[in-house]
């Protein structure tokens, strides 16, 4: 039935919340429960699969490059799913609503690689 992914409903609101954490304007949650609680309060809407029990926050600084690696087993599952007939890469809805056109991803594995190449090294700014 597909991989259970972490899902965000209102990305813009989450982004505003992340900015507040980054600036020190809001306390960084010490637990997954506190994380959920802050996001409920902010109206973000987040879907966290039951398998996830911990949360880690990492903040860049001027000298450090943070490279975020995907979970090995999830990566394997995702590649298998995308390789299957009819497999399609799930993009957050706000992209399509922003560009007012449907993303046509003809090579899902290649697109996945590009996406990973983007967000694993992107510096969130």
């Amino acid at each position, binding site marked *: *039935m*597909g991989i259970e992914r972490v*899902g965000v*409903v*209102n990305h*813009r*609101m989450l982004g505003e919340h992340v900015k507040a954490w980054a600036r020190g304007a809001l306390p960084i949650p010490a637990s997954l429960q506190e994380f*959920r*609680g*802050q996001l*409920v*309060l902010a*109206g*973000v*809407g*987040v*879907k966290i699969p039951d398998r996830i029990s911990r949360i880690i926050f990492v903040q860049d600084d001027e000298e450090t490059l943070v490279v975020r690696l995907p979970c090995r087993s999830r990566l394997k599952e995702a590649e298998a*799913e995308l390789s*299957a*007939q*009819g*497999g*399609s890469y*799930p993009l957050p*809805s*706000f992209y*399509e*609503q922003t560009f*007012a*056109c*449907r993303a*046509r991803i003809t090579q899902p594995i290649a697109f996945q690689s590009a996406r990973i190449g983007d967000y694993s090294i992107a510096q969130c700014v």
Partner: protein
Amino acid sequence: MTFCSFIREPEPHERYLSGWRRLDGEQASCPLRARLARLSRRMYIPYRWPPSQSPGTEGWENPNIPAGYTYFAQFVAHDTVRSSVSTSELGCPGQKNRNARLAPLELHTLYGNGFDGCLTGMTETDREQLRPSKLSLGQISIGEKIDESCPFRDIPRALPRYTTANPDGLRSVSIADDRNDNSALISQMTMLFTLFHNSVVDHMNEGNHLPESVSQAYFAHLFDRARDACVIAYRRIVRDDLMKRLLHPDAYAFYTHSRLDFLDPREGGALTFEYAQALRFGHAMVRPHYRVNDVLQRREELIDVLLTTSRGRPWRLPLDESWAVQWSKFFPIAGSQPNRSKRIGPSLSPDFLSDLVFDRIDETGIVGLAYRDLVNGAASPVWSVTPLIEEIRKRKPRLIQASRLLSDADYRQAAIGSWLAEDNAATGLTAEDIQDLSQDPPLLVFVLFEAAHEMHGERLGVLGSILVGEPIFKALQQGAVGKIADARSMTDTAVCLREADRPHVPVGYVTDEIASMSDLGEFLQERAGSVNSVIPFL
């Protein structure tokens, strides 16, 4: 038509929020709106259902109600209620909410005003294809192409050229009730009933006349007779299938008893404020994701179900192969294992919080469907739960005794209070909020809580069943088959029709065959012509 109160108009002290300031014009500082915002957050925290005992299913999945009934119930809701005031305007001075749906359960949501009898200049092709008697359909696209292999399995959509509308994409829908395009799945349900009507037209015409030889009145009569047949079958499905699944067994037995004695004996077709509130329980049945068909090995997320409409994503229409519903995935057909609806409880799928779909409606800035539902309830002069229970107890004590939540006020308040207090650090609900809301909960919240607490979310509880069931069964009783047929015979076109020109297929042939949504699916598979393609219809 105005809404009315259930049984009688409650006294001021018997109304919901009687001890509170109601919604006021200063939206940003309105304390009631702020409290409803906090309560709405509670409604996105998952209800704590016991883990599923069935392999491959989740605890939140309802084994009693396949997912198709969520959208059939929505279709029925659109066929019974059409509020005259938008939610964002509710609570504003001078706004009086009326029900623009004058005749419930007569498929006005599908037919609108019906056959206008004024068609002129019909072409031969129109006549040959019985177009004047039919409702329009749209083709789906397969692999982003539309050709003869693409079946007509969408509602009709069009480019709004030469109009003042934005001309980009298929933004126009040619259907009677545009609420039936507020998600990809309700538009598929509308398509299903459109196919039903058209297949009945075809069947009624078989062996009767060559369309090119008959008058316009023939087409009008054919339309009306097919509509009668569809309405009768639809009403039977509502009574024998939908209500049976949704209502508490005691309430269903009460309303299907041969000597039915309504709690509210008043005549007239006005629906109640309480019905319009309780009906929103269907929002809690919506799953976070669906398997629509087997063409693509994936599930569709709710946010995409909600956005794939002519207003939401006109550039993506007509619907593509990922949205053509394989109906055995939504109703139990020939041993299928359909998607299950979500258990009914005071918790909505997270995607209902999306600001892309349910943007803010007032100056509080709160987004999401739950807040809209709560504001709608606060603006409606509905009964408060406790006096309503007492009023029902006076008339039918046996129904109340069946439920501890209804018969024991202290237990009720404690149970609701306990649920509200969970995660209150996240919701922001204060002790005062919890105290007040557990004493005087919004009717919708109570209906959802009752379903979860007493029926494991598999169906409505007693109070929810009464509030939803009574108006439905009243409407079913009032709109008798004969009454519909008699009314139609008074139309100009039918009066003008010679007996020899009338279709001779009796209405009963459809109603004998169809008593459930599963029956309807199988009927259409057999009779609706080329509905199959690379995407099976069933």
